[in-house]
């Protein structure tokens, strides 16, 4: 079996949906924990997880833009509603998570530069699709690419990932920022799985996270017992099959260390 040599040594940018997913997973794991302790537990857990990711970065930071971090503040409301925790406590958690990030403002002109590129995929932009906040993450990635190291953008938004792949092919952006081919978008789960393969996340935790995501997927689409629900179960089977391969790689990496 070939062992991919995909280096994790890269600047890291996270989208707010990744932060929400991690917090949701933590809350799910802590079901049954007294509410009074839950927020503190989540704060500690988030700090631990982001600390793991930080160790792969060249600058020891996890980056985000101000506007995207602002979007994450909305998570306090949904967490409060879902878990019945006081809104102020949830806000504390959100603030804590944001304080673990290095947030920057990219300026209002930068998205305009990207929008002006030839053959810009306008159809991907608009209500319920991509907006300027999403572009700000790409601009930040291009700014970080001027350092000459790879930059990874973690998100769960497929449109944003496609947009990053599109920008990578645009050599014109070098006129303003770094080499676009240094910027790479990853689904957060893919990146976490690669971190797992590097022996920095336990296999049990990775399996549990993937099961949580798939269960959430099935439950929220109300698909249990339907053909689509079966398809999700099938996908989960495929994920697990791939994960077995990944664990073999992980074990080899562990032996080599």
């Amino acid at each position, binding site marked *: 079996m070939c062992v991919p040599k995909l280096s994790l040594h890269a600047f890291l940018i996270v989208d707010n949906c990744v932060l929400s997913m991690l917090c949701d997973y933590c809350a799910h794991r802590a079901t049954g924990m007294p509410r009074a302790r839950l927020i503190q537990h989540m704060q500690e857990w988030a700090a631990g997880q982001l600390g793991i990711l930080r160790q792969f970065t060249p600058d020891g930071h996890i980056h985000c833009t101000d506007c995207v971090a602002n979007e994450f503040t909305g998570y306090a409301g*949904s967490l409060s509603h879902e878990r019945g925790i006081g809104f102020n406590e949830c806000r504390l958690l959100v603030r804590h998570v944001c304080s673990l990030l290095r947030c920057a403002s990219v300026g209002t002109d930068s998205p305009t530069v990207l929008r002006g590129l030839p053959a810009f995929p306008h159809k991907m932009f608009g209500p319920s699709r991509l907006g300027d906040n999403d572009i700000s993450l790409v601009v930040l990635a291009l700014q970080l690419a001027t350092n000459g190291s790879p930059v990874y953008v973690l998100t769960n938004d*497929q449109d944003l*990932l496609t947009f990053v792949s599109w920008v*990578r092919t645009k050599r014109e952006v070098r006129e303003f920022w770094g080499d676009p081919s240094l910027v*790479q978008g990853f689904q957060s789960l*893919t990146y976490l799985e690669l971190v797992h393969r590097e022996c920095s996340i336990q296999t049990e935790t990775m399996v549990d996270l993937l099961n949580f995501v798939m269960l959430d997927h099935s439950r929220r*689409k109300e698909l249990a017992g339907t053909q689509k629900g079966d398809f999700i179960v099938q996908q989960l089977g495929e994920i697990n099959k791939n994960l077995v391969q*990944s664990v073999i790689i992980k074990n080899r990496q562990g032996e080599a260390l």
Partner: protein
Amino acid sequence: MTEDLIPIDGFLSELKASLSEPTGEAVLRRINAERLLHLLAEEFIETHQAERIRILPDRRLVGKSEADLLLQVDDYDIRLQLLDAPENRPMLAVDQLSRFLDLLENNPSTIALILVWTTDDLLSVPLNVPRILFLLENPNRLPHLLSSAQPLLNVLSEVVARQSKVWEAKLDTTPHPEAMPGDSRQLFEEAFGKAVEVERQRSYKFPARKEAAQRFPVEREKRVIMEALKEALGGESFESLKKRLTGLPRRGGS
């Protein structure tokens, strides 16, 4: 719970690429090319709405599948196969062709397999059974095939256009006289009369048919049909009219 659902298909593709591709660069090429492939395929679908194209990951289909994507167009389909291009140009070995031949022979509804390389502009070539057989017999023509690669959208458009019937319809630009109010009953009667006349003028090989055409009771049938039209316009039910119009006349008269 997270606000948006995580796209599991995308995750699975990335996970598979990270496990199956031989190098980190190949993993990234594959992941990015897949996303661009979807972007371009969706763009193509939007510009060809009349063909009602559906895009599916090929692995969802029953049975053995080899391609990455399947475009269902009308009553045929096109498969897309991603191939790695480490040197940012199309590369293909002759021994890969037999696998593509199997794929096309096992899927009769697939009219073309488009090979798409992981270059920035997704250079592509279409293959079909005769073309593969020709290449297997003449492997020295492979470089020519690769040099003819074009961006995916051009190739897709050409393949679909080749399947579509081209109607040589020309736009009528001559000015039309202003429409005059007319009696629809009268118009129908005239049109019906002309149609019957055309039928009667047909040349028949067998004399019996010619005679039957000449003896066709035009006036009587016209009367029946015009009465039916009148009743239809007056609100008579379709069922009762159908019965009358399709029923055989009584022997010896109407």
